């Protein structure tokens, strides 16, 4: 036995005291799925899309580091806003898919969108048994919009 180990072994006894104390403490466990963990408002859970705000500018798709946003759109003529004016051209989304199998939750897409069309929602329960279902389409992304929280109050 090495020199720094002395007979009454106080360290061993102290350690046993720590575990004995822990035995009678309440375990700080959230019993998911019976009890839901409440995520912080800023948590990057899932991206929600506001279809009406999106102008199909493709910025998000271009800036995404792993290119997991798929956008298709077309231009639509709309009647002029005031009679006699020129007909307006409005870009309409045909497809807006995010592949959560690829997404690395960096948040760049949300950050670069210049038209407030993308938001982070802290929802986290969208696991799937088939990887193909992780490709969320425009409708699915829109559903998340209701879960987007208010930003938290700030310090000082």
């Amino acid at each position, binding site marked *: *036995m090495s020199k720094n180990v002395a007979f009454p072994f106080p360290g*061993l006894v102290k*350690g*046993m005291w*720590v*575990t*004995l104390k*822990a*035995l*009678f*403490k309440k*375990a*700080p*466990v959230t*019993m998911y799925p019976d009890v839901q963990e409440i995520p912080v408002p800023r948590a990057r859970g899932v991206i929600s899309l506001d279809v009406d705000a999106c102008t199909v500018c493709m910025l998000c798709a271009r800036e995404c580091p792993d290119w997991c946003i798929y956008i298709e759109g077309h231009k639509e003529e709309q009647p002029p806003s005031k009679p006699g004016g020129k007909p307006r051209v409005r870009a309409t989304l045909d497809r807006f898919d995010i592949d959560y199998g690829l997404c690395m939750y960096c948040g760049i897409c949300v950050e670069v969108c210049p038209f407030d069309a993308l938001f982070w929602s802290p929802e986290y329960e969208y696991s799937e048994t088939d990887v193909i279902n992780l490709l969320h389409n425009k409708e699915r992304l829109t559903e998340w919009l209701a879960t987007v929280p208010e930003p938290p109050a700030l310090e000082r």
Partner: protein
Amino acid sequence: MEFVDNFWFQLVLKLAGILGVVLTGALVVIYAELKIGSHMQTRIGPYYAGGRWGWAQPLADGLKFLQKEDLSPTGSDRTVYGFAPYVVMMATIAVFVVVPFGPDMVGANLDLGAFYLLAISSLSVLGVLMAGWSSANKYSLIGGLRAAAQLIAYELPLVLAVVAVVIQAGTMSLNGIVDAQQQTWFTIGSFNISAPFIIQGQILGFAIFMIAAVAELSRIPFDMPIAESELTMGYLTEYSGIRFTMFFLGEYASMISLSAIAATLYLGGYAVPGVHGNIVNLLGPGVLLTKVAILVFVIIWIRWTWPRLREDQLQTLAWTWLIPLALLNIAIVSIFKVVF
């Protein structure tokens, strides 16, 4: 009531009793380990299985293991590989034959009970060695050899510690040893004081016995044969399915058996002070199991607190500390026996 004395009837009864005690006992200890361990880690542990507090978790685990494929690696020695778990299990169960749960509640009251115990309990390492050797896996091999080295080192202090008890009791029969702890130790006025051997100066022997027992069980801090961070799982690496279950049950059953032996040898066994006659047969098992439970709790507690030793440190501990101390213990006990 003639058939009660029938040999075969008694045999079946005893076998059922022992198997019942071993298997349910092992399941209870597994559950206790899961629960105590997780609460010591401020977790909850089993929770859902069986409804309340996950009491059915060991059963569920066992069922799961039974469904698993029984793999044996290419290059393994199938016969030996397949036989090893049963050797371990058999050795463990055979120990219970002589453990007395009451004056008559005993599988076989052998005159050489203590001797039989030591002989049988060291048999399980044969199974471990077989498992390690036949698995055709280097980790298993190292684990098996470590287990063999460990057994040789720790069987000695274990035997020497028991020898001291045998000297003090003057008998090798386990019932006799329990009775000896019921004898009058000394008298104050008209009170006859009797005490278990741990109080009658065997505290050193008890400590040596427990250390050696934990080493035999290869549990932390002496779990080098398994040492999952070094040898993945030691001799268990390749086992799966029912054979793994056998090892697993065997480990916990031998935890009970060694605790029961320790309780019998040092803590007074089934005896209840001041109670004699047939009623002890009724109370005895409860008393013994309480003592076993306390010892098992301590073993579990240690396992969830301490790290493991190194192989060479374990050998040093055995050869330079435990064996000399055990010899010293024998000397002291003999002197007292002769002088008083």
